[in-house]
């Protein structure tokens, strides 16, 4: 099953992030000073405050930090999705992000489950970074 929620509209600050999604890349920022990685795009490092940040593509590997199964649609765009999984995934680089877990039954999702990036098809140059259960061979 594939599904996709309301379309995001890039701001001036996130144009590069969203453009990269059409190329199959999930950009995170790494602080040039403390080397911590952060998500979503900011103007300063949330760990040390430095403004020297570099974009890098996330590996796409992570684990489910927590999740819920939405039994009632949280937006009209999900009206026909049936129960769907909203999750916070911890990327192997460290940052947490909000996503959907797809490619498995919602009842199979568990905290700690290894997952991998699975972009939705791009529409108008924007793809959404969803995740699916990791394949056996990383």
């Amino acid at each position: 099953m594939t599904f996709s929620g309301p379309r995001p509209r890039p701001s001036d600050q996130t144009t590069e992030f969203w453009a990269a999604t059409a190329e199959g890349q999930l950009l995170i920022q790494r602080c040039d000073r403390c080397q911590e990685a952060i998500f979503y795009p900011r103007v300063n490092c949330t760990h040390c405050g430095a403004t020297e940040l570099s974009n890098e593509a996330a590996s796409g590997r992570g684990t489910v930090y927590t999740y819920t199964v939405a039994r009632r649609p949280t937006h009209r765009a999900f009206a026909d999705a049936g129960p769907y999984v909203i999750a916070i995934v911890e990327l192997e680089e460290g940052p947490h992000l909000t996503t959907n877990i797809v490619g498995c039954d919602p009842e199979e999702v568990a905290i700690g489950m290894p997952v991998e990036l699975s972009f939705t098809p791009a529409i108008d140059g924007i793809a959404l970074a969803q995740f699916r259960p990791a394949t056996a061979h990383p």
Partner: protein
Amino acid sequence: MRGRGAAVGVGEIKPVRNTEGETALSLMAKAGLEAIEDSGLAFGDIDGMLVHPIGGVSMLAPSTVLEFMGMEASFAEVVDLGGASGAGMIWRAVAAIEAGMCKACVCLTGASRRKRAPRKLEQGPKASTGWNIPDRSPFAEFEVPFGNIGANVGYAMIANRYLHEYGATPEQLAKVAVHQRDNANMTPDAIFHGQPITVDDVLASPMVADPLHLLEIVMPVGGASAVVVVGPELARSLDRPAAWLLGAGEQVTHKTITYAPSLTDTAIKASAARAFAQSGVTPDQIGLASVYDCYTITVLLTLEDSGFCAKGTGGRFIDDHDLRWNGDFPVNTHGGQLSFGQAGIAGGMSHVTEAVRQIQGRAGDRQIPDLDLAFVNGNGGILSEQVSLVLGAQP
């Protein structure tokens, strides 16, 4: 701040599902006027006003309300802390009084509630105010597309993480809703007055967002709550008991739960610790916990992080105690928002009005005998904004 101010009057509009004929502004004004009258002060005695952002009023909310009510104020402010706004207003009013900016401040909260047509997709989610302007909120870009919209799924993810890290049983969480319903059955104005429920009822109610059942989730209503706060001289001059502010703390850590420092160690720890330290009171002295309860998990986390029990033992604490007005650890004696109703920001304020009533000794059939000290916690967003208060019968 200890002993520098007190709540002396409250006003409250009975919660209803449909407030047709009223606006948030009109409901807030009515509650405010009732609170002023209840305090024994004259209309013209009020010289301070605190409000929260009001639907349809995009800016200058305090002056809009003052003009609507025909009042002037030497201190007026918007408190924008979500569900923590009500509690946040109380210490700000006392601080303003202590600072000499005003002598009597009315704190206004309220919401209208209508049945309305479903929102159109292109209108975007209710939570996003930036949908049609060039500047987007991170929330609109990075949460909404994945359906992380509204409080249910956010608290559900918190609950699942808590259950993973520490564990609690569905029955323990359900007991919070059941005992608060018992309290609501002693509260004639409560929206669910006269409708007792059991643990089985809670667990049999529909799963809305795993692991949250329908009866563990607040129901939106219309209504309003208000409180009058004065300085010590005025409080002593009035022929009524006062609920003195003994300590307050506030902590804001994030907007969206995804980016919170922790999903299970909440900002309540810091806000409650400051409130207790300022008051010189310890959690074991508290006779009423009047704490924000948008969900049952919120109550469990608040009891832990306020210091009533250790982290990870909230479920057992709930098992071991009777949370009703006549129990050994009374929680939300008005029914909490789960059973009293959540009238927007006034839902959070209802924890204040109930604590004031209880300390003043006029909580009717649900009065806690000889109550000296109450703990109030306000919670905004998805555990985002926290305000803790210690209130006492003596300054």
